[in-house]
């Protein structure tokens, strides 16, 4: 299976979780920090013209049936709408949405019947202050998920996961006082763990009756 954004954080946790079930994981990332993982590494910029094809060639080279694709790679470039720069909107759209769409298209013919696509959206698709571009991109991932679910049924199931505040490097870079205020608004009273998101991805990849859905994993933040 293929996991993008696999070098760190949620992507790495997903890859490691899937390896415990015996899957061969192709870990895709733009940086060179895949070296200390046990994934089959593909270092590539997915927004480049030949990025998705590079991953497709890696799948072919390994020769395993492709049973899952996890589109996880994502970036943030936060600012209030009135202060956002267009290049930051474009960059976030290209990585979070364009790369997921283009990579999925490149791998479609390789996904075997019964396989599964899981797209990492974000709870920010419901709206989040200072994240117009990120929210737009993750909302787009929701639409991508629904359209693909219709297009690829019954052979391939397609779902999305929308994590809230998860304890990753990205979240820990938020100033501590602001992070604490965010946690105070989470009914479960804590950040989520990457392993908890990975468990949900693994569950969705197993054969089941769910497709075209968005599962929010946010400790109840969508209510409070």
């Amino acid at each position, binding site marked *: 299976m293929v996991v993008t954004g696999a070098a760190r954080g949620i992507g790495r946790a997903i890859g490691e979780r899937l390896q415990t079930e015996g899957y061969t994981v192709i870990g895709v990332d733009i940086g060179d920090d895949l070296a200390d993982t046990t994934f089959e590494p593909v270092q590539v910029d997915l927004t480049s013209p030949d990025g998705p094809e590079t991953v497709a060639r890696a799948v072919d080279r390994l020769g395993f049936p492709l049973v899952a694709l996890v589109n996880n790679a994502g970036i943030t470039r936060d600012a209030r*709408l009135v202060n956002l720069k267009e290049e930051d909107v474009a960059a976030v759209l290209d990585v979070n949405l364009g790369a997921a769409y283009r990579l999925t298209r490149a791998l479609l013919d390789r996904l075997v019947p019964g396989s599964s696509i899981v797209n990492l959206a974000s709870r920010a698709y419901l709206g989040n*202050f200072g994240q*117009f571009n990120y929210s*737009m991109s993750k909302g787009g991932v*929701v*639409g991508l998920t*629904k*359209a693909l679910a219709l297009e690829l049924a019954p052979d391939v199931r397609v779902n999305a996961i929308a994590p809230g505040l998860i304890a990753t490097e990205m979240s820990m870079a938020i100033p501590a006082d602001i992070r604490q205020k965010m946690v105070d608004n989470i009914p479960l009273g804590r950040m989520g763990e990457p392993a908890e998101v990975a468990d949900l991805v693994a569950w969705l990849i197993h054969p089941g009756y769910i497709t075209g859905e968005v599962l929010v994993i946010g400790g109840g933040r969508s209510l409070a």
Partner: protein
Amino acid sequence: METAVFYATDTVDDWDAARSLLLEAFRLSQEAATAGRPIVYVVHGDDLLGRRGAPSAMVATGLLSAARTAAIELARSRVPANVVAVADDTDPSVVDRWVQHLSDRDGPTGEVVRLDASHLGKALP
């Protein structure tokens, strides 16, 4: 004050077209937010459910999320940001009327109003 209205009701076929529309919507939205003008995105109802292909769906649901975030950021200024979802046969005058409704500073914000019926019994994104 004049409402910024962005129409994305036609189908789009590829990522480049979707990206272009989303960036155009950003530019219009930023201009409106800076001027304190209400924002309404008009999308096709089928695209909110992914029925007309991935690129069109990505635009419609991307705009819905963008409206929700713009609504949060502009709420203190009482500037609404909303979405109208139409069908193929929705009368343009009805759309215009709802754009006006959704531009009311005392009205809803961050909402989607469906002027078609194809969503009934289905899940909204």
